[in-house]
Each structure stands twice: as structure tokens, then as C-alpha cells.
């Protein structure tokens, strides 16, 4: 039980940590991709 709680706590931490860096990075990549599309217009 204790191990299970520890596991779910670590999963939550992983989601938070990856979201913390992933969300701004994805936003930046999308902005750049939109800009890059001008090459094909």
C-alpha cells in the first residue's frame, strides 16, 4: 500500500515536472512552426 502511494506520488511529480517544461516548449515550437510555414506560402 505504502509502495503504491509512493508510486502514484512519483507519477504525479513526473507529470508536473514534464508539464512544467513541456508546456512552454510546445508553445514555443508551435509559434516557430507557424512562422516557418511562411516559407511555403
Amino acid at each position, binding site marked *: 500500500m505504502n509502495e503504491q502511494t509512493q508510486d502514484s506520488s*512519483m507519477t504525479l511529480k513526473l507529470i508536473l515536472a514534464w508539464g512544467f517544461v513541456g508546456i512552454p516548449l510546445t508553445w514555443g515550437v508551435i509559434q516557430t512552426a507557424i512562422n516557418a510555414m511562411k516559407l511555403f506560402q
Partner: protein
Amino acid sequence: MSLLSILDRSHTVAKPGFSRWMVPPAALCVHLCIGQAYAFSVFNLPMTKLLGVSQSTPADWKLTELGWIFSIAIFFLGVSSAVFGRWVEEGGPRRAMFTAALCWAGGFFISAIGVYAHMLWLIYLGYGVLGGIALGIGYISPVSTLIKWFPDRPGMATGMAIMGFGGGAFIASPLSVWLMSKFSSATHVGVAETFIVLGIVYFFFMIVGSIIVRVPAPGWKPKGYVAPTQSQGLITRSDVFVYDALKTPQFWLIWWILCLNVTAGIGVLGQASAMSQEMFPGHITPVAAAGFVGLMSLFNMGGRFFWASTSDYIGRKNTYFVFMVLGFLLYCAVPHTGTIGSVAGFVICFLIIISMYGGGFSTVPAYLRDMFGTRYVGAIHGLLLTAWSMAGIFGPVLVNYIREYNVTHGVPKAQAYNVTMYIMAGLLVIGFICNLMVKAVHHRFHMKPDHEAERAQVAVAAAGEPAGA
């Protein structure tokens, strides 16, 4: 216990149950922030109008003066990573990340004062010197930690972090433009306020990274991973002391490989917009050229992850052989694409070239780990980054001056880059030869058992509890 002791390596040893997949986001927290350096040029034009606001006045700063800010920062990146490499390695990643956060934010705050008081030397000192030191320390801070957490996939692990450095500009560029638009008015450009906000945001991000980073306990290894007991080919099982690495030919060969690969890439990266428009007049407009630069940035970032991960399967030496051979062929093909008017061919050539430029950065820590072991890989990587500083000077100078020479000697603009492309291809031939000469490090450079025992004693004393899987 002093408050600062929480920064010690001994306080970052992972407890049981810690997942190693927490470490890449910690590294990304730092690399995404310091990657802002690639987007610093968005401030150049606004900073030429700090006094005139709508247009430059004679008292305003010139673009040539502002260009030095980035150059000083890259110079201090190389210097600080070389000087502080051992300190970073021995002090642990949390202390290094915390220091980098202080310097990075401090650099922005000092630069904000410089903008406010219109004193350029304060920006040289703030963003250039202090920010450059943050770049150096921050860049190498998670490298050896990642390699220790991912002994089975060192290329992929460092590739993820160094990919963040390439991706930092994606966030910084639109964010800076947006902030400046919010802070600007009819009488004010808004650069100083933007610097302050960026300093605060980056400090927060980097501190989060320093909080979540952990080092594995001595002897930890991933579940199911069996470390090879003997050296295999180029991959050593022994460690080389940081300053002993400098005495090996392998260090200098890899130094030249990185320098040449970066010189070839950096030279065209800065000139891509102008080059594409001059080689294809009427076909590539300034707007399309801006899109091309954006696409190159995406490949620069993607290449960092792709090539470093690939190197885990095909080997580091083979990966650099691919960079040199494929790079040579592509550089030779670029003038041909201009001759036949193939925009698609030109774009594809440069996208692959730039992916290998990024790949050169991200694969090199794992190459060093193979050659010199894991103990001082961060510090050795720090010393190697002086190659980047050198390439930062060589690359743009080579492209600019050769183009200038050609144009003044009557070569049409569309063909002015041809010689440069062949020179870049030639540099990669030298890089190929250097890579060919890389052999396993002689055992006389390996750390002796007494060093090992001393190291183990320090590690045991430093470690709190053993880490989990």
C-alpha cells in the same frame, strides 16, 4: 546546518523510489532558460532606439556595438565552463544550477539598469560577463548527472537536455517580443522592463530545476542494466582525471572535431536568411526567408535529440563520421542547387546540415564519457566548450569575409557563397581525419586505484541513503 548546505551534493542523493525520469525536466529547466541566448538578437533593433524611440538618434547605440553583447556572452560561456568545470563536477548539480540561476537573473537585472541609464558597458558586464558565466555553468551543470542516471542511454539523456538549449530561443523570442509590446509606449521602448521580467521568470524556472535534480547513490544502476566489466573498443570502464584528459591526443582531436563541425554550421546559421534570398532572388522573399530561419531552428533542436539518441545505437565515432561525410556531400551540393534553381534542394540540404550542427553539440558529452569515463565528464566537457567559443568567431568571419571578397571582385551575389560552401566541406574533411584518428585512451591516463579508493570514501561519506531504481 547552514541554509546553503541544501545545495551540497550530499543533499541531492536520490532516495528509494525516485524516478530517473525526473532528471531530464530538471536539466531542461536550466537549458530552456539559458537557451534564450540564441534569441538575444530580438533586442538588438529596439536597443538602437532607446533614446529616439521611433527611430535611432546619433546618441543611440549602433548595431555593431550591440553585437558585442552576444559575442562576450559566448566567450565567457567557454571560459567559465572551462574554469568552473571541476567545481561543478565536485560540488554537484544543485549548487551549479543555483549559481547559474543567480548569475543569469543577475545578468538581466544589471542589463536592465544599463538600458535604463543608457550605459552600454553595464550590459556588457551584465548579460555579457555575468550572463556568459551563467551560460557556461548552466550548460554543463546537468550533463554528468544525466550520464550517471542513464548509463544505458547516455546520448539520449544528454541529447534531451542540450535540445532544451536549442529550444530556449523558441520560447524567449515570442515572449520577449510580446513583453516589449506590453511595456512600450510612445516615449518608451520597454526593453528594461522586459529584462526585469525575464530575469524573474528565468530565476524561478532555474530554481525549480535545482530543487528537483538528484544524483544517483554510489553503485546505483538502472533495473536490468548490466554494466560491461571490461572496456569495449573506444568505451572505457576507467575514469580519467580532468586535467589528465588535456594531456591526451583524444581530447584535442575531439576538440577539433567539435570546433570544425560547429564552425561549418554556425557560419551558415547566422547568414541563412541573407544567403537564401541572394542565392534565389525573386524566389525567396524576406518573409519566406524568416520562415526558413524558423524551420532551421526546429531542425537544430530536433537534431540534438535525434542524433544523440542515434549515437547510442551506432556509436559516437560513427555518428561523427555521418556528420562529416554527409555534411561534405551536402555542402558540395548547395552551389549546385543554386545553379539549377532548386529551392527545395537548397532547403533540404540546409535543414540536414543544421540538424547535424545541433547533433554535434549533443553527442559530444557521450563521446567524452566513452573516452574518459563518467567521473569528470562534466568538467572535461566544460574544457571542450572552448571549441565552441573559437568556432563562434571562425564561422561567421569565414562566411562574411569570403562573401565580401567575392562580391567586391565581381562575383554575382547568387554565386558569392559557393567558395564558402566548398571551404566548409573542406573543414569537414579535416574533421573526418581527426575522427578517424580517435583511438581508445591509453591506460596510463586512467585514474589509479588510490584515487578510486579516495573517491569512494568521499562518495560514501557524502551519500545519505541508497537510491531506488
